[in-house]
């Protein structure tokens, strides 16, 4: 101990420098990777949002904030498309998290209480998350097409009036709700897992005290469990709001934004502007739309943080 204390400052400095260098050496690959893959692409994307380019020409045409203005109100073609897509995105952002909370919380609560076949049910409920992906989205389109299995089942159950002759994705009034259900179906398992984690973290003595005070199951759930799980609910909601805002795979694969533009969301519109714009000079517009989405996501994250802090 004394030897350490008496070590000359130069030696200590050298040792500290060596330790710092070792630390930097370990961090460097990740830093370089982030600088190349992260900062470069972020900077490139931001610059592109101020330019007009189709991805082929060697030079960009600078348009300043023109792309942002075109998307928000100025361009008679793109602005209405963005407005329509924004409304659809908003509907998805509200409906998907709501559905997930409404379904996953009761399921998690039930799963937490039962003993018999609990593991089996957990596996079954978690299957959509394990299997969700492009192949499953394709499978859903087959289920939902005019002569798909859903219409077949409905007709054979005597519920033919509920079947959709144009398919559930072909009717403008059912296409978006159907996609919302498919999205919720894929995300409910994570909601269940999060709620289960929260339920198992609740101090048993609190529940025992409620029971002694004469609270029934419903009263315990609404007055004790639900308030205690509010942070979990906030996390579930915000995760899925962010996902609903930015993801577009399900829309691209199952409807490509159709019929017409009835299921076009902002993420899909950005993709279409970038890669399906008939070779038009719309990569800058796509990038600008991406940045608008980023700002909205940032605001939502701030709200999320605020909510979690206030509950804590």
């Amino acid at each position: 101990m004394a030897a350490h204390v008496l070590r000359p400052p130069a030696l200590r400095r050298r040792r500290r420098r060596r330790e710092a260098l070792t630390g930097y050496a370990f961090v460097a690959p990740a830093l370089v990777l982030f600088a190349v893959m992260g900062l470069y692409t972020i900077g490139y994307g931001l610059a592109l949002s101020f330019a007009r380019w189709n991805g082929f020409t060697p030079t960009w045409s600078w348009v300043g904030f023109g792309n942002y203005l075109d998307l928000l109100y100025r361009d008679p073609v793109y602005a209405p498309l963005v407005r329509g897509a924004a409304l659809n995105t908003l509907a998805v952002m509200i409906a998907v998290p709501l559905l997930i909370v409404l379904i996953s919380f009761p399921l998690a609560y039930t799963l937490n209480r039962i003993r018999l076949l609990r593991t089996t049910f957990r596996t079954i409920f978690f299957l959509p998350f394990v299997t969700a992906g492009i192949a499953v989205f394709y499978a859903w389109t087959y289920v939902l097409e005019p002569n798909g299995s859903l219409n077949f089942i409905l007709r054979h159950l005597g519920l033919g009036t509920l079947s959709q002759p144009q398919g559930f994705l072909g009717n403008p009034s059912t296409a978006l709700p159907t996609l919302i259900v498919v999205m919720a179906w894929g995300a409910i398992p994570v909601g269940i897992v999060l709620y289960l984690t929260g339920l198992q973290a609740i101090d048993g003595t609190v529940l025992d005290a409620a029971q002694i005070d004469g609270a029934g199951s419903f009263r315990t759930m609404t007055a004790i469990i639900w308030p205690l799980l509010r942070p979990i609910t906030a996390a579930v909601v915000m995760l899925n709001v962010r996902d609903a805002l930015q993801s577009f795979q399900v829309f691209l694969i199952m409807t490509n934004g159709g019929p017409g533009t009835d299921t076009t969301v902002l993420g899909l519109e950005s993709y279409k502007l970038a890669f399906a714009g008939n070779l038009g000079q719309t990569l800058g517009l796509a990038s600008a739309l991406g940045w608008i989405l980023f700002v909205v996501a940032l605001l939502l994250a701030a709200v999320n943080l605020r909510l979690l802090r206030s509950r804590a």
Partner: protein
Amino acid sequence: MFRRGQRLLSLVAAGVAGLALLAGCGGGSSASGTTLTMWTFKEPHVKALQDAAAAFKATTGITVNITAYTPDDTFTSKVQSAAATHSLPDVMEVHAAGEDFTFGAAGLLTDLSSDIDASWKSRFLNGTADAGLVTPQIYQQSLDPKSTHLGIKTGQLLSIPFTAGTFGVIYANKAKLRAAGLDPNAIPKTWEDLLSWFKATTAKDPTGGGVNLGLSSSSTGLDWLMEPLAYSALGQAKYEALFGKDPAQNWGSANGQHVLDLYNEITPYWSPGAQTLSIDNADLGFAQGKSAFDVGGTFTMSSLQQDGMDPNNIVAFGLPPAANGAVGSAFKLAPIALTGLAITTQTKNSSAALQWLNYLTTEQVAGKFAQTAFDLPGTNLGANASKDVGPYLSSLESVFGTGDTAFNPTQNAFQSPQWDIQKAGDIVIKMSPLKQASSAAVNSQLSAYNLDSWK
């Protein structure tokens, strides 16, 4: 010291000579041993191109590796990234009279005007040889700052025809026609006759007797059906005026209303869910018997064959004209170059690439390509056409015509450079098949879009 310097000089000279020899092997006339890469966006063309490449190698010693990137947006993004990383192939099959100009404007394609002489051009179907040529009119249109062709120069030849054909070809299932009491040999003479066929098959089989078209890309309804129908109904001058600035004649006028009303007559006969189908899935559904009709182009035959449909069960014909229309029974569809062959500016084997283009566009090779790919080549097969392409494809050639009575979808100089058929399609699809808007409302929206596109 002097001797050491001499030795060094000799070594450098030998090295330079060796490099020169190697360079000569790569780009000179003796291209044997060279390997070319070619990209296409048409999967049905791959086998036929590979067969041609094998024969080409046996003749010249040049290897050609064929790769397909499909669908179109995948091909586009692949070219975008390859252009940025200087890894473009030597040769590309591109959409003629559009994509070639965009790529050429970006400096990705070689100007072939000095390589393709009059005798080479004479190989191609009448009216298609100059599909990839930048005319003064195309150049003028490209000067718009938002044009995708900004950068092309008058006189550049950016591609040569590879496949030709047209849109607006109706494919019908013979068995379903017979089941509905129709004679497959009595081809409809007018749009109204065709509607009566649609009505009969749909009445016979409400779920499998309708019309398939890949309407998930809404532009196909316009491109392949409504525009040729409008041309037959109005004639060339009034059709072109639809896209102009004169409110008495453009979209929004009585002429526009007439066209939309005509097109809207098909609405009851779309196959269930046609609005959700991609072009490939529409073809597949027709091949599987899920519809009695499929609207496509001459190229659709190759997809149907690939999807396993018996060609003997297909009757194909061009879109018939509107009864009492301006064009009348003389109405035909003009053959156009659908895809073209282009050499990229990043190739190091331009001479070998040109040899490959030459080989592919000879009558004999084009004939074999047609047989394997079931697609019409841009090369004129002359008297051997029906033998080379077979009875099914040669029957499609009967839809072709020339002159003022033939609708040519590539002639669009009268449209605003900003006119985007996809955007227009998004408007029209609300009327048919979605029934969300009346023809009058769609006419008004098309009018607004058309006028905006001129601003």
